[in-house]
């Protein structure tokens, strides 16, 4: 695939590896915000290519991981109804609620379907006028315009049996929450490329100034990550502050005006609870008044559910980047992708799952030597 394969070129990777080693003189902690970037880092062993002085901290950028338990429980409640077809992106099905997950609902007779796009869910609603089709609208800014479009079209085309269960979160408030935490150790950020494709990076400029650090908007292929790290380290070494854009092939400073316009029409900013982190002010979206009839929470008035979280694992600290997955006592023992204890193990892009899948080898060989 063009614009992908060339960014996986081993020779280019080696050159960037050397370039990074060349300019690094001091220890630096850099956080990649986005789960997709974590995935690339672990999949290609990017962290092993870096000088020891550079530590990558894996951020909370996995929508599946941070969707709060209450909302998973609501999803499970709604999906269990006979009159509902519940549509979701594939990775949400495995996220454990208080007692069950969506796979269990499906096994017990619930009509739970995996879709690739929110428009597919809308199509299912159009084809099944006698049932309510609920789409689990999760995601960061990247996914928000797609979900907004589905709701916008439902309203315009009078597909009134369509509803969305919204769990939308925003990246900059989470970055700020991390930076203002007393235990913060992040000195530079790799910004989430596709989030910025939609939103641009103006929002990050005041953040970089306020907390006096570099933020490098970065893509998702190995060469992107290495170049993003190179640029971030260079700014850190030179004591420079501000926003740089490594992913210029897909990110403009102002983002996508069409996408932002649509999101603004459908959503409004609201406080959001993040699983494993807590409520972050103004860190998410909810539907505007005009679209309230498409809000599944509104339509189904789900009772306040009794949620039950255990406190045995460290996913909160892992999401925040103060601990590594391997530092958790449950990691790889009680907690595996089949039996996740924490949100970060659930999604394939959660930091723990990424470590588990890609990192066991390192541990195994370390034990032998």
């Amino acid at each position: 695939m063009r614009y992908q394969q060339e960014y996986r070129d081993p020779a280019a990777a080696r050159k960037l590896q050397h370039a990074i080693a060349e300019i690094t003189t001091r220890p630096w902690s850099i956080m990649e915000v986005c789960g997709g970037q974590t995935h690339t880092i672990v999949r290609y062993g990017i962290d092993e290519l870096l000088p020891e002085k550079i530590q990558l901290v894996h951020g909370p950028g996995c929508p599946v991981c941070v969707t709060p338990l209450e909302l998973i429980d609501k999803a499970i409640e709604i999906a269990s109804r006979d009159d509902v077809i519940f549509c979701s992106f594939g990775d949400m099905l495995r996220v454990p609620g208080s007692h069950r997950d969506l796979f269990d609902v499906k096994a017990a007779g619930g009509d739970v379907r995996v879709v690739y796009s929110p428009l597919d869910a809308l199509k299912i609603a159009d084809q099944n006028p006698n049932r309510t089709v609920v789409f689990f609208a999760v995601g960061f800014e990247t996914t928000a315009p797609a979900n907004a479009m589905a709701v916008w079209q439902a309203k315009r085309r009078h597909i009134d049996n369509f509803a969305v269960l919204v769990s939308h979160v925003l990246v900059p408030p989470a970055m700020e929450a991390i930076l203002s935490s007393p235990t913060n150790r992040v000195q530079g950020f790799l910004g989430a490329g596709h989030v910025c494709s939609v939103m641009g990076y103006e929002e990050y400029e005041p953040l970089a100034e306020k907390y006096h650090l570099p933020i490098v908007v970065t893509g998702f292929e190995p060469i992107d990550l290495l170049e993003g790290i190179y640029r971030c380290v260079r700014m850190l070494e030179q004591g420079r502050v501000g926003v740089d854009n490594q992913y210029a092939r897909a990110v403009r400073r102002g983002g996508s005006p069409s996408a932002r316009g649509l999101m603004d029409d459908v959503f409004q900013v609201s406080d959001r609870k993040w699983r494993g982190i807590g409520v972050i002010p103004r860190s998410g979206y909810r539907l505007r008044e005009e679209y309230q009839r498409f809000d599944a929470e509104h339509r189904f008035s789900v009772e306040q559910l009794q949620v039950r979280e255990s406190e045995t694992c460290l996913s909160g600290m892992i999401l925040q980047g103060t601990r590594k997955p391997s530092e958790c006592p449950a990691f790889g023992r009680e907690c595996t992708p089949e039996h996740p204890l924490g949100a970060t193990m659930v999604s394939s892009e959660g930091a723990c799952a990424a470590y588990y899948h890609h990192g066991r080898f390192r541990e195994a060989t370390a034990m032998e030597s």
Partner: protein
Amino acid sequence: MCLGIPGKIVQTYREHDVLMGKVDFGGIFKLVCLSLTPEAEVGRYVVVHVGFALQVIDETEANKVFEFLQYMDDLGELDDGGPDEEMEIQP
């Protein structure tokens, strides 16, 4: 987060008054909503996420990293200490 894949637009059309396109991802074709990238045309590459094109790929920008690496190659050695400004590749 946010899997986004580059693909080439091979056809555009309107459905329910929304701009749509058929996009070629290296031999598989998917119908994609282009309403967020109204400037997208047949032949251009877009980054697609959950069935939506998020941005049109800027081909000039896409090459810059390789130009930078070529430049480093031309320098021969990285550590031969060229002035830092010459290595700037910021936009």
